[in-house]
């Protein structure tokens, strides 16, 4: 997909945002359709809408195809979140609410197809009534409405329309809950993908209008007709099952879907621990608070006698992404063993064991993507330093490598919208090139530092970038090797009482970052 569309427009990376886009399309087209829908003659009104060649036909088709695309995008989104291990712990709320969103979308589609009251509509209505009649909830069997004793009452169509219009409100509330634990949720895809997706659905609607099946007839068996596989995929299975078995089977499937992340998550003891703050080092600069993708960090008043504020991590919200470790100039925050200081200690040991040669390009690779390079100790002859997330990489490590005499440093991050921890590559790029705190210092030769994006399947991309980096390094002057690089010492100034940058300028930064 990246080869065809590039990571910026890869629809798989924007599957969640595409669902929201389809919801927007459904709302806009639905508002038009509801004006022409008649409760007294549902199928006839749908046919009349379909006969409006200039508007009604394609608006109804767009409504239908957008609803189909919503299911596809939601299913892909759920699969990606599960496959990327992003569905348990503090993300459980998003997982469960996401499944509820998908379920509610299917129910909404159901009511929508019953509104059409064609062959598919009556089959769905009768199947739903059969299921509901198996529950001890209703004083009279709902199925009676469809046996032909009398006309199907308008009240049924009114209730159906009401649900179809009212349930999206619940959908909105669930969506809010779904993204409530993430900072800066990307609700809409980038402009190119937004208009591309809308355009292609529109073209499909115009060239291949959605059909309205033959009208429902209570005294004829449902004829062979067009069914929407995205909303009626279960029909061939459930039609042959007793209603109780359908409830039990559906309940088991639902429970498995909800609980799957809990079964597949790492065992206790193997799960990464939440970030911790070394309050002696924290200068209260708020950068970790701004960068945290999960709003797990709050700034609170200090209690150690010093003036100002200090970062505090909520372990219930922290997913241990380590992005705060990369954002902290004094290197005072991060998951245990992965703070900036821990990273520096690790790289110091690596360099002490084998100092990089002037023509070496050291690969720093994210373990979740980066063509799988992060799992190796060397790649194509280049030493590899693995990091759990590129966003957790402290720029001091890059500086240390360059000043230790490495010819170049190739940092391989996941594509920004494919990041396991949402915003790692974005913040890393800004720290390397746009002076976002904790920025790569000016004294580091940027010509020796390259950042590329590659997902797990793009080993070739990494190999090509490494080759290019080697060529660039060879064209530069020979790298100088420094000794006694004491980067922590600069940070220790903070510990001794030098405050971090605060005041109005940082307040502005807070607003910018939260946006």
């Amino acid at each position, binding site marked *: 997909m990246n*080869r*065809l*569309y590039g990571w910026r427009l890869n629809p798989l990376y924007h599957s969640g945002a595409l669902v929201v886009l389809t919801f927007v399309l459904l709302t806009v087209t639905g508002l038009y359709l509801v004006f022409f829908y008649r409760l007294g003659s549902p199928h006839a009104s749908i046919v009349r809408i379909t006969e409006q060649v200039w508007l009604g036909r394609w608006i109804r088709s767009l409504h*239908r*195809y957008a609803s*189909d*695309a919503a299911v*596809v995008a939601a299913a892909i989104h759920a699969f990606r979140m599960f496959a990327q291990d992003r569905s348990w712990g503090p993300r459980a709320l998003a997982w469960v609410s996401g499944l509820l969103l998908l379920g509610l979308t299917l129910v909404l589609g159901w009511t929508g197809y019953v509104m059409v009251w064609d*062959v*598919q509509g009556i*089959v769905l209505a009768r199947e739903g009534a059969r299921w509901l009649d198996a529950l*001890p909830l209703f*004083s*009279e*069997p709902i*199925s*009676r409405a469809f*046996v*032909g*004793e009398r006309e199907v009452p308008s009240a049924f169509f009114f209730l159906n329309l009401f649900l179809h219009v009212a349930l999206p409100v619940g959908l909105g509330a669930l969506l809010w809950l779904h993204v409530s634990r993430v900072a800066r949720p990307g609700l809409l895809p980038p402009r190119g993908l937004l208009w*591309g997706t809308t355009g*292609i*659905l529109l*073209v*499909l609607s115009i060239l*291949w209008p*959605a*059909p309205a099946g033959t009208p429902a007839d*209570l*005294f*004829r*068996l*449902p*004829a*062979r*007709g*067009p*069914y*929407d*596989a*995205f909303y*009626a995929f279960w*029909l*061939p299975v459930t*039609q042959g099952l007793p209603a109780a078995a359908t409830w039990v089977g559906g309940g088991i499937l639902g429970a498995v879907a909800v609980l799957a992340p809990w079964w597949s998550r790492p065992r206790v003891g193997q799960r990464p621990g939440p970030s911790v703050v070394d309050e002696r080092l924290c200068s209260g600069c708020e950068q970790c608070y701004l960068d945290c993708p999960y709003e797990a960090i709050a700034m609170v008043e200090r209690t150690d006698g010093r003036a100002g504020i200090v970062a505090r991590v909520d372990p219930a919200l922290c997913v241990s992404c380590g992005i705060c470790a990369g954002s902290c100039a004094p290197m005072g925050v991060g998951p245990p063993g992965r703070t900036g200081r821990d990273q520096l200690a690790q790289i110091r040991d690596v360099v002490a064991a084998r100092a990089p040669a002037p023509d070496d390009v050291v690969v720093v690779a994210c373990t979740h993507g980066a063509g799988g390079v992060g799992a190796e100790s060397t790649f194509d002859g280049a030493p590899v330093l693995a990091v759990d997330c590129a966003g957790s990489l402290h720029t001091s490590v890059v500086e240390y490598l360059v000043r230790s005499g490495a010819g170049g440093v190739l940092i391989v991050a996941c594509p920004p919208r494919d990041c396991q921890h949402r915003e790692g590559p974005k913040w890393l790029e800004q720290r390397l090139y746009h002076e976002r705190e904790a920025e790569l210092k000016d004294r580091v030769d940027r010509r020796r530092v390259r950042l590329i994006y590659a997902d797990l399947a793009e080993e070739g991309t990494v190999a090509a970038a490494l080759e290019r980096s080697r060529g660039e390094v060879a064209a530069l002057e020979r790298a100088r090797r420094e000794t006694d690089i004491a980067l922590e010492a600069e940070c220790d100034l903070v510990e001794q009482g030098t405050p971090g940058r605060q005041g109005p300028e940082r307040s502005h930064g807070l607003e910018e970052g939260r946006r």
Partner: protein
Amino acid sequence: MSWPRGWIGGGALAVGVTLALGWLSQVPYDAARDVEAVVRLAWRTRATQVEECRRLTGAELERLPIHMRQEQVCEGRTLPYRLVVVLDGHTVVDQAVYPSGARADRPLYVYHELQVRPGWHDVDIAFTRDPVPADTASQQERERLGERESAAPQRLTLARRVMLGPDQIVLVTYDAEERQLVLKGSGAP
């Protein structure tokens, strides 16, 4: 991937996915599958209620609080029906039909779909209520006579020869005004 291969590949994939979306949105399906025609039995009728009353003995009354001492107590129940359906000489349904509801005090519902082949069929239906026990004809029950009159008769029958074409459904239902079983639908004579 560079122009034009990237654009062609990306465009082809987008068109392919879009066409798949369009096709899956309208997959031909036959929900009736192997069913060719149906005789549907569906009706609702009020069940006949009876109350069995008895006078409490002096000792029983003594055990009750003063404000609860009624000399006569009644227990109500509804009478079940038996439904027997003979189709082309074969008994296809023979079952008791009980009133619905947790306390069995709601109306009776009958719902069956009998799959048949198109053509002529002899349908013979008997819907028979248990008789009202003679010893329950208390004052209260006589007062409820009017209500019982609105319930279905003690025996409903229908014996017809019906013609069903392919995919047709004929409905046998209860007409509360005529107080009899009737046929409805395209296959009804």
